[in-house]
């Protein structure tokens, strides 16, 4: 009996360690949990050049979509954002490392799901914990970040957004 135990014990330890580590890994829903929990105070110039996008614009649960005209995978979000827009969800665009000229061409060509679109040269991105584009934040009127979707919007992410909006 003790011979069998000592033979299988290393395997048992291995299974235990793997199971414990696996429990630390993110499940799909936990992957949407933001690290940065609140929006920084921000004031970004709109793509037209005249207005600003600030915390005051967010008066109810909304999406902030961080994207760029040069970002290929951002196109994947487009139809989903247009759908959400038609359902009445306010969506604000923050274009990261982009130029107003390229942005205007992109929005005209693809369609514009955003109530307002503004430009960020990098500080806003770091302040919300951006790791690339596209990323989508579900934010509320008090500036809280409820969800942070990294990469294009998956079905799991869309479902979670809709759940939170109920």
């Amino acid at each position, binding site marked *: 009996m003790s011979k069998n135990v*000592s033979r299988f*014990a*290393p395997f048992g330890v291995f299974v235990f*360690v793997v199971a*414990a*580590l696996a429990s630390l890994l993110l499940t799909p829903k936990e992957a949407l949990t933001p*690290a*940065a929990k609140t929006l920084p105070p921000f004031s970004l110039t709109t793509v037209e050049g005249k207005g600003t996008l600030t915390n005051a614009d967010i008066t109810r649960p909304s999406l902030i979509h961080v994207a760029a005209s040069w970002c290929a995978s951002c196109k994947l979000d487009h139809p989903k954002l247009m759908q959400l827009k038609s359902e009445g969800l306010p969506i604000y665009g923050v274009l990261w490392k982009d130029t107003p000229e390229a942005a205007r061409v992109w929005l005209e060509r693809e369609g514009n799901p955003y109530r307002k679109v503004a430009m960020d040269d990098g*500080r806003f991105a770091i302040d919300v914990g951006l790791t690339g584009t596209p990323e989508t934040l579900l934010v509320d009127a008090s500036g809280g970040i409820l969800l942070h979707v990294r990469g294009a919007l998956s079905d799991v992410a869309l479902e979670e957004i809709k759940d939170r909006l109920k």
Partner: protein
Amino acid sequence: MNVRTLPLLLFAVMLCGFTSEQTLPDPAQEARAQGLFREIRCVVCEGQSVAESNVALAADMRGLIRAFIREGKSDAEVKEYLVARYGEEILFSPPVTTGTALLWAAPFMLLLFGLARFAIKRR
């Protein structure tokens, strides 16, 4: 141009590539910045620190860290700022918490187990 000036010229051109980023004028502050760069993970490039990474986000982080040092923030405050926005994973050596204790302990546990088995077998 004689045979010695060409290598020198190429060396000078190469140096230009390394000096295109604005470093801090105070060498002690720049040294602190470089130290911090090596401790902060580049969130875009797997395994690289912001010291090594060429991507825009890493360059932005280097600029921000330098600005913080100039403003008088301590190393701990700089790290706290980034951890608040990216989580502990942004540091190359995550602190020991209840969640990460197993990660830290596991290699030692396995080593001890192996040594214990070896010792028992020898008896």
